[in-house]
């Protein structure tokens, strides 16, 4: 299962990658902005996207808007991983098509909970 992490923070991408490895999700590609995320999707098919909301250039909402309208990408589940725990932002992201939401800071357990809703094998483990 290939996972795309879209987050402008290098350290957060490293931390997420490390946590994904602990969940046996080791096939990971990274992007530092929404624009880079779209580029990555064009080059490599992925099964799951972890998406930050606040990023320069194209933010998480821009990424969601672009990918949810594209038939080839609209089925890819997107899980928001953001520090912004503002309910309005969470609801907006879910309405725009994100499947789940995890609020930073979190550890593997929190990530597993956020991913459990969209990755079946993590629900039972």
């Amino acid at each position, binding site marked *: 299962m290939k996972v795309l992490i879209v987050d402008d923070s*290098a*350290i957060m991408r*490293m931390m997420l990658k490390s946590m994904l490895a602990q969940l046996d999700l080791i096939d990971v590609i990274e992007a530092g902005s929404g624009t880079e995320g779209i580029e990555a999707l064009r080059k490599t098919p992925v099964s799951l996207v972890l998406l930050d909301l*606040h*990023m320069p250039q194209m933010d998480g909402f821009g990424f969601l808007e672009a990918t949810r309208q594209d038939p080839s990408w609209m089925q890819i589940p997107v899980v928001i991983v953001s520090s912004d*725990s503002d309910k309005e932002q969470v609801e907006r992201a879910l309405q725009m098509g994100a499947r789940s939401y995890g609020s930073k800071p979190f550890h593997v357990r929190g990530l597993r909970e956020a991913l459990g809703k969209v990755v079946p094998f993590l629900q039972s483990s």
Partner: protein
Amino acid sequence: MSETIYLVASDSSPWVQQLRAHAHAKYDIVPLPTALDAPPERPARGVIVYYEQVHSSNSLQFSRMREDMRLVDLPLVAVTHQPTAASRARLLASGAAAVCDADAELELVFKEIENRCNLEPVVDEIRKGLLDPFVYATLITIREMAQCEPAVQVVYRKTGYRIFGDHSALVSVSASTEGTVVLSFPRASSQELSRRMLEPLGVAVTEELVQSCLAETANIIVGQAKGALAGTPYAFAMSVPTVIAGTNHEVRYKPGLPCLVASFTSAIGDFALQLCMAF
């Protein structure tokens, strides 16, 4: 209730006895060691550092005290007997806010402290309604990121617009006006925070990664506070963080905006959160 003035001096000195007698009722004179492990815990008006005579070694000692207390931003007033132009210059260069003559009227020393103190207490309503969500977010985030239990040291409102740090992460916020949230670290604290974040990933600390660690930490703190304050009169929108690096840099704010400061102590060292926005 009398306000606190910290005193660094030998307690047996006649001048100190005189100071205590004179301060009675107005100020609580609290002794401080010269070598501080951390900034003092009680909010105060300032620090009096008394020397019978100024020696060349006093300058180094003085600059260390200034360094220890930079996140608290208290004025350090040096007092000595008949200071020469050279000793006055040395102490001012080491960070003294003023140098007073111990043989002059004691009232002048208190006046110097009062004139140079730019700290005020934070009123309860602002503390609970606005600052505490940021403080709580900071405690949670540092605990998670650095695996330690930070504690709040001092909370104050400042009327001056600067604080010293070696690394500062800034997040612009917009509410009724534009404002800034700043997380400031002395170099040792930012290095240790980064080390603790990077070690589990098997990654060595570099200056670039220190900045990334600080930016993300500030981003999470402000994001958490944003969620807690949503729907309140203090709700705000936030930008992506930027980091300023440089020994003892100063962060200045838009004049006129009040600035709330919470300084923290923890196993990673001291650090401070500044919240500069209209409220």
